[in-house]
């Protein structure tokens, strides 16, 4: 569905084995097209975070290759929401969100409107001077989200960004994110544990299985954007969710089996 169909990058039989011998990923093939909203769903420990790090270039695969679209150029800006908030503990909320812009040479004053707008969006207005340890877990995660968005990156990699948020804030942020995405046509790879969230947001859901981490199945969510509250109550939505849940269930079982193989 949706936007452009150019493949932005492709994982070609990518495998990752850590130095302690744990194989986090084996033989993963995945294509991400420009403008995709791709969700990664899978059991805990199946290698979702690892896949995201590989895509971001923070790790190199042990086998296989990650093939970026040459034409996309070298300077694709990537926004990354880590699974943990990963904030600078000594810097205020404002400074943490400002950071990516600051590294691009944007002054505090110039950055202010963008930063404040994002803080407003993640409901953190009034906390710009707090340091991370004075925030609750969910608030920290929201700072991290704001930071990833502040540069309007062309690729957004998000590792369970909303897991620590209450459902209502989560819904709001889901909507916000979708809106932004439709506006700015960036590419999103989104790790989540919520079937509902993945179906609501994404154009494609990739379900992974564990031990070793691999792509188990892919589900295209062929529902039109924009999606809104109505979509959440639609028959389609329920059906997609059901299907995704089922696939996830089988993936878990596959995991179970392969564990018995002694892998």
């Amino acid at each position, binding site marked *: 569905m949706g936007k452009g169909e150019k493949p932005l990058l492709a994982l070609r039989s990518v495998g990752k084995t850590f130095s302690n011998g744990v194989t986090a990923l084996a033989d993963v093939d995945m294509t991400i097209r420009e403008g995709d909203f791709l969700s990664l769903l899978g059991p805990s420990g199946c290698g979702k975070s690892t896949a995201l790090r590989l895509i971001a270039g923070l790790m190199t695969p042990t086998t296989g290759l990650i093939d970026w679209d040459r034409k996309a150029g070298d*300077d694709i800006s990537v926004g990354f929401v*880590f699974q943990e908030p*990963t904030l*600078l503990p000594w810097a205020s909320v404002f400074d943490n969100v400002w*950071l990516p812009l600051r*590294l691009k040479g944007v002054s505090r004053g110039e950055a202010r409107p963008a930063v404040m707008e994002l803080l407003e969006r993640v409901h953190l207005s009034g906390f710009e001077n707090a340091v991370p340890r004075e925030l609750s877990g969910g608030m920290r995660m929201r700072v991290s989200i704001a930071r990833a968005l502040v540069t309007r990156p062309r690729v957004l990699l998000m590792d369970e960004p909303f897991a620590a948020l209450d459902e209502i804030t989560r819904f709001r942020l889901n909507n916000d994110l979708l809106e932004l995405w439709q506006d700015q046509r960036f590419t999103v790879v989104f790790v989540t544990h919520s079937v509902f969230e993945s179906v609501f947001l994404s154009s494609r859901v990739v379900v992974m299985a564990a031990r070793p981490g691999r792509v188990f199945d892919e589900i295209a969510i062929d529902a039109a954007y924009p999606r809104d509250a109505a979509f959440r109550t639609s028959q389609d939505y329920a059906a997609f969710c059901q299907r995704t849940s089922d696939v996830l269930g089988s993936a878990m079982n596959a995991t179970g089996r392969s564990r018995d193989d002694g892998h």
Partner: protein
Amino acid sequence: MTVTDTNSATQVLDPEEARRLRNEQLERIGSFVLPVAIMVLAIWLWDRICVWNEIPQYILPRPGVVLQTIHSDAALLFSSLLVTLKITFLSLLLAVIGGVGLAVLFAQSKWVEMSFFPFAIVLQVTPIVAIFPLINIYVDNQTAKLLLCSWIVAFFPVLSNTTLGLNSVDRNLRDLFKLNHASRWQELWHLRLPAAMPYFLGGLKIAGGLSLIGAVVAEFVAGASGQSSGLASRIIEAGYRLNAPRLFAALILVSLAGIVIFLVLSLIAHLILRRWHESALKQER
């Protein structure tokens, strides 16, 4: 398990909680009174030891005598203290610049570190007394000599701790900077240096004392004479003149200076770290 009341400890019944509160109160009073009390006790003990063992004044003078000497020789001693402190501060400053500078250099690459750290160690372990003749031949300025000597003594802890700190940065944060195409210097400035701060400040606390002792030792070795001489000269002179009270007066001043430097550096560390680092945080209760 826990009962706590609105701003009042009187209604507290739970023994554990009561103990905790009592401890806290004690702590609060203790943290001011006790150090002073213990210091006083130590001085009293010194006095008693002198009396009980009938130690003659020319070996170990009683604290009263030393205090009197500090008072009577104040002009001489304090002007010397000032000279020593000047060298101390300059060499601490140089230790910070040199230590951090080298640490930053070493942080650039593992092989820079492995190539140049040995030289830093050589500097650290070379006895000044032994290489002073060389320094003396090639350095003319007296202050420069003193600074060089005390810098050699003081810079290593700053270097070593800062290096450790620069290498202890959270890996995810480093990845974040990498993703944002931060330059080496940006990473250094915005990430590594602030993250190394607690380690650096720890090194600084060690270097504070060392640069003081370095200043004294430098003067011992490099010698200064005339009016403008520091406490080391006073110590040597007093030792030679068998003037034990003055010798101990000078030593006490060195010690006090050391304590004050440490307190000041601790305060600075506290102010810098208090908002975010465990070591300086007030535990929220």
